[in-house]
């Protein structure tokens, strides 16, 4: 399994004039204009979105809600009832289900997952999880 990559992220929760400065980066990453135009609507609807630049691509995603996560958890719990389901299959299904709901651009589905580098998907899942509030406080260690 590849190590998750460091991905520069840009918080797209800023006024119109700052969105223009991000537009250049988004266009250079190949994001279509109609997607860029949809960002303000997404910000209003979802309370904010983020873009991650991984490799040469750009991924725009929102937070997962608890309601969405419950649905995902129930699907995975049903999978575990099948004795032949492995932990790896559950982990991969978990990634697919989360990205289906959270990834706004490019749109993701289990069928299209083959087009994405595996490492990118794992990285994106971690970014979505973090953006959705799963942040453990790291202990602060200082030399005395």
């Amino acid at each position: 399994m590849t190590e998750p990559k460091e991905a520069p992220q840009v918080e797209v929760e800023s006024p119109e004039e700052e969105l223009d400065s991000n537009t250049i980066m988004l266009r250079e990453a190949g994001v279509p204009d109609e997607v860029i135009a949809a960002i303000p609507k997404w910000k209003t609807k979802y309370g904010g979105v983020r873009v991650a630049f991984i490799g040469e691509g750009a991924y725009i995603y929102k937070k997962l809600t608890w309601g969405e996560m419950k649905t995902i958890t129930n699907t995975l719990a049903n999978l575990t009832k099948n004795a032949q389901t492995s932990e790896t299959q559950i982990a991969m299904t978990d990634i697919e289900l989360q990205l289906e709901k959270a990834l706004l651009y490019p749109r993701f589905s289990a069928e299209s997952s083959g087009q994405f580098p595996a490492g990118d998907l794992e990285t994106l899942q971690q970014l979505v999880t973090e953006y959705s509030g799963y942040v453990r406080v790291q202990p602060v260690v200082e030399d005395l």
Partner: protein
Amino acid sequence: MAGARAKVFELDVGGYHCRVRALSLREYLPISEGALLFPTGEQKEEILLNCILEPKELRESIECGDIPAGIPLLIFDYIMEFSGYGMTVDERNSVLDNMRSELELDVISSCKTMIVASGLKNLNELDEYSLMELLELVVLAEQVLNIQQSNIMAAFAGGEMVKISWETPLNKHEELMRKMQQKQQEVQQLLEQQTSPRGGMGVRRM
């Protein structure tokens, strides 16, 4: 009342300052079945709603479903950790070692430990007793534990198990007569030994 004796913890998660209680064994068992521990979304939510004591707004946001998923997920993980579930073997051993080194039994705790170990009483019954009664029970508990230990040794070494027996009063007289006769025979034997020649092999009546 469910959770009345549970430990309570405080957490800061996602801008919420929460008071959360630990998950009891009774609440944990339904989600621990199956080879892959995977509770459903509803099971997780029920645990969260039962264990989050404050703030009420957090419980309401979770019920509503629009709170960012990571916050309830993180609280759920903390609840499981604080309650002791999901530890690795090494983590469990480390916790036990720390608890052993911190354990200092006072008089009352020592008595309770002895009595519970003997099986005479359950732990939750003992708070109804006075210390004097506990001490009486301790003495009895010591006897019980001695007998248990003797029987365990006998079971391994093939010896005789400790067992109790009574004689009926009617047999007492006969038993007394038998013992008196036995004593007489012993005395007779001693006398015969004393009158036999010294230094040589004596002929003994068998």
